[in-house]
């Protein structure tokens, strides 16, 4: 266990982190430019989880939120969510959950649950239930209709996350499929996704 933990952090995996963080930010920016109703700001973290494993993805999630936090401290507490998404994606990949479209969709749903379960307590305890993004409006609507705070936050973030995460994992699936065997062979979990069949 100790050995595999250290092995995850090889040079190629570490050099993937800056790119993945930038992909997270650029994905969010592109979604904004194209005026899409979802964020798409965890694509990089999920890619790292899929091809380089949970621990490298943990670091990617953490760095993403720290860098976002430089200009908007609201991101700092949500570093936990990014970390959880990265670790979750890494373990799902380890057990072969990104190998086909149906399995990928299932892992998108699992990642949604991870994201909601980790982020809802942060939203409630740190920000009292709302943070001013789109899901806040839905939370407010649920509260006005008489729901309790916890269930309002859980259901509103579930509604906004599910589309985002399922689309994100599908994009990741197609991007990993487009990666060359030459590159994948250098990543820890890459052999799972190589086109040439290796019977290991």
């Amino acid at each position, binding site marked *: 266990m100790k050995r595999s933990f250290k092995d995850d952090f090889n040079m190629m995996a570490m050099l993937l982190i800056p790119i993945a*963080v*930038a992909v997270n930010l650029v994905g969010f920016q592109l979604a904004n430019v194209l005026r899409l109703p979802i964020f798409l700001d965890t694509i990089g973290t999920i890619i790292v989880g899929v091809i380089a494993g949970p621990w490298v993805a943990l670091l990617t999630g953490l760095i993403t939120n720290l860098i976002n936090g430089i*200009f908007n*401290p609201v991101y700092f507490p949500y570093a936990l969510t990014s970390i959880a998404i990265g670790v979750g994606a890494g373990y799902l990949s380890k057990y072969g959950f990104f190998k086909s479209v149906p399995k990928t969709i299932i892992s998108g749903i699992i990642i949604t649950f991870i994201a909601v379960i980790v982020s809802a307590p942060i939203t409630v305890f740190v920000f009292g239930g709302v943070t001013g993004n789109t899901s806040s409006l839905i939370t407010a609507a649920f509260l006005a209709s008489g729901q309790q705070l916890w269930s309002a936050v859980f259901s509103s973030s579930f509604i906004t996350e599910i589309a985002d995460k399922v*689309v994100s994992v599908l994009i990741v699936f197609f991007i990993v499929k487009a990666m060359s065997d030459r590159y994948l062979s250098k990543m820890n979990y890459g052999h799972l996704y190589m086109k040439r069949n290796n019977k290991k």
Partner: protein
Amino acid sequence: MKQNILLQLHPMTKFYFTLFLFAIVLILPGYLFSFALFPVLLLIALFAGVLKEFLNIVLKALLSVLVIIFIMQMLFYPGENVLWGWGIFEIKQEGLLYGLLLTSRILAIGSAFILFFRITEVRDFVKSLEDIGLPPMGAYVVLSTLQIIPEMRRQANTIMEAQKTRGVETEGSVLVRAKAFIPTLTPLILSSIAGTEERAITLESRAFSAPVKKTSLHQLTKSNIDRALPIIFALIVIGLLVWRFFF
């Protein structure tokens, strides 16, 4: 840049100061102190010559969040004493107090961190973390991330323009716009990861992963103030904790 006592402090000292503010905001009860902290931060920003950027970022990042949180707490926090009501909306005293407490804390802590990153170069901060034990690889990853972000933003724009000339539509219904996302992101990621191999070779040719102590061109020095201030901060926090829980 002009010599400035504040800017010349060791990055760790500034970081401990930020953590110190974070701790006392959470320790002290009530919202008055936390709100009073903001003008203090403004003064520090003015003294360090970063007032304009500081205010800009606070307004952009925190103001809307604070207003929304405050309104939500006023309307929906459970309580008995109704101050004012209109239809299904009722403003309760408990909600008003909790809203003030929450927003004052978020304002104080959030702006303390914003100020920290205004008066500290990220490069210096990472170097000081390296000095206290962050692996050089970690420092390299953080710094190269900061470098690569604007680069990839530019590249994403270039790719999007190129795809537009090929006929990929970026206007229209949600589905049409969503379809433009993948042809932009995929080439961006694939071309970026192609470059990592060369960077790995470059780093290795300079013995980056050799198990020896690294020398750095960039050095930070600690003055006496930098040694004394963290101790003072810690003493004040301990004093406040004792006062809060034993008296």
